[in-house]
């Protein structure tokens, strides 16, 4: 009986993982196919990867856009999120809870709602001043959804910090700004790094919100557009690379939170 259970448990887990990962596995395998056919496989080496980087200018354009937006949005949301967290932390309790809930709401909101509402705002602004949907609007949108991730990674670090640490810095001769730079920031830096990595990951793979807020393609949008025309194996190669990049980022984030829970 016990054995049966164990057996069932193993099978269940196996099936689940198969279901989750087989599509990705198929995609990765096909990215190494010789021909465009999806029916038969023969080893083609890095053919499609080569084509991706050397013969698909629009993909490289999209990659550049995606990375630029992700990096800038991460940096800006780190600044905004960290300052926000420090500010909220200094507020009175009831007020702080309210601000936290307000910041939490956009995270739980479906992307489509965020995307549509941002699009409406940009369109509205555009009727008064010239404000085309492109790089800038996409950047603003990404900052909007990235900032809460930083905020919520930094907040616990602030809570863990000794309540008198900031005052101790003032006591020893720091002005307020210096106390923040020399004491608070170093004490919460693990949270800032984790938040930044999360934000970067979110930016990298965002499709829905970018789709509504920009007319220039980022990678996800490009893949989507290409899929409508009929998918090229270069897209498999691209998706495989994105998958690996995200996987690495997530492993880093997990490792970091493991480390933190130990210390």
């Amino acid at each position, binding site marked *: 009986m016990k054995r049966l259970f164990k057996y069932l448990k193993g099978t269940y887990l196996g099936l689940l993982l198969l279901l989750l990962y087989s599509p990705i596995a198929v995609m990765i395998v096909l990215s190494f196919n010789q021909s465009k056919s999806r029916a038969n496989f023969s080893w083609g080496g890095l053919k499609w990867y080569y084509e991706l980087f050397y013969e698909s200018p629009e993909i490289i354009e999209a990659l550049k856009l995606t990375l630029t937006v992700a990096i800038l949005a991460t940096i800006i949301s780190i600044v905004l999120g960290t300052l926000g967290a420090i500010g909220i932390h200094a507020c009175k309790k009831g007020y702080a809870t309210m601000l936290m809930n307000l910041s939490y709401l956009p995270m739980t909101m479906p992307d489509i709602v965020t995307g549509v509402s941002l699009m409406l705002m940009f369109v509205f602004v555009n009727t008064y001043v010239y404000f085309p949907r492109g790089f800038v609007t996409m950047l603003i949108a990404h900052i909007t959804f990235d900032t809460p991730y930083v905020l919520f990674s930094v907040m616990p670090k602030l809570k863990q910090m000794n*309540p*008198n640490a900031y*005052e101790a810095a003032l*006591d*020893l*001769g720091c*002005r307020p700004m210096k106390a923040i730079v020399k*004491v608070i920031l*170093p*004490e919460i830096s693990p949270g800032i790094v984790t938040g930044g990595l999360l934000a970067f990951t979110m930016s990298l793979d965002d499709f829905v919100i970018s789709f509504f807020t920009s007319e220039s393609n980022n990678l996800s949008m490009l893949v989507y557009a290409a899929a409508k025309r009929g998918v090229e194996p270069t897209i498999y190669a691209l998706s495989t690379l994105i998958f690996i990049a995200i996987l690495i980022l997530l492993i880093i984030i997990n490792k970091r939170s493991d480390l933190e829970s130990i210390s």
Partner: protein
Amino acid sequence: MYENTKLIELKNISKSFGDTQVLKNVDIYIRRKEFVTLLGPSGCGKTTMLRIIGGFEFPDEGEVLFDGKDIQSLPPYRRRVNTVFQKYALFTHLNVYDNIAFGLKLKKPEELLPNEKKITRRKIKAEIDRRVKRMLKLVKMEAYEKRSVDALSGGQQQRIAIARALVNEPEVLLLDEPLGALDLKLRKEMQVELKSMQQQLGITFIYVTHDQEEALTMSDTIVVMNGGKIQQIGDGKSIYDEPKNAFVANFIGDSNILSGVMLKDFEVECAGHRFECVDEGFAENESVDVVVRPEDVMVVGSDVGMLVGEVESVFFKGVHYEMKVNTGDFTWKVHSTTMHPAGSRVGLSIVPSNIHIMRRMEAEG
């Protein structure tokens, strides 16, 4: 000892958090080089008072004077005061050495090296190193300078917190229960250390504790507080020998506190007996509190005592026996160097000068 000038003055300070009034019309002054202890039960407002002096809290009413000047608008980093916080507040991203060096690195070079004509980076570094090393030695933590502060015990952290504040040689050092996490032996050692540091460096100490013994051994002046109010200010001896009210008597050392009636000058009735005493100036038949220290109650033969009672319990306390003796109207705490078994009948005797008469606390409100 201390000079006779007022360095810090709190004038009529009141402070509330929301509806709770934490300090009520507090009035004290602290002289240069004095060792002042704020003593009182948990929640009586000791930390709040220190925080007002340190500049982290603002009184609702009253004035804070430093050297005769109002310093209420001065931020903490401009006050010539350093604090040892109750929860240490060490910087966890820095090691022991860098925690202690933190304040020194913020000082101006000419402050650090006042006699040096040509100040170089290397000389500054050497001076900081010299001072940090001296502090580490003082708090007996030389072997730990490269350690992370997270890896220290509570007592070690406390010593680093003391070193970090003291290294700046402030005019006034505020210490909020700085020895609370130490074991008894280390605490006694550190008490002696702190006291001698204070005298050597000539720094004014404002020291918070709720341990009355610590207060008595270390302080020039003790400020006894309760419920946000100052109960009594004085040196250890005067507070111990002449407590102003029953709270002080009870808080400083063990006491027998009885309610009594002042029959006339030099005569008080309590516990069913008329005692001769040395107090006068009360109204006839005024209700008073009578305080007698346990060590002042003498155990004598049951035939010669002023009072006769039965021993209820006996505990050995190292030097003396602590007994409870019931004389019918009152159960006395008695310290005696001779053992009397529980159940035996003994006589009790008190000399007039050891009977302290105090006005009723309610009357002072």
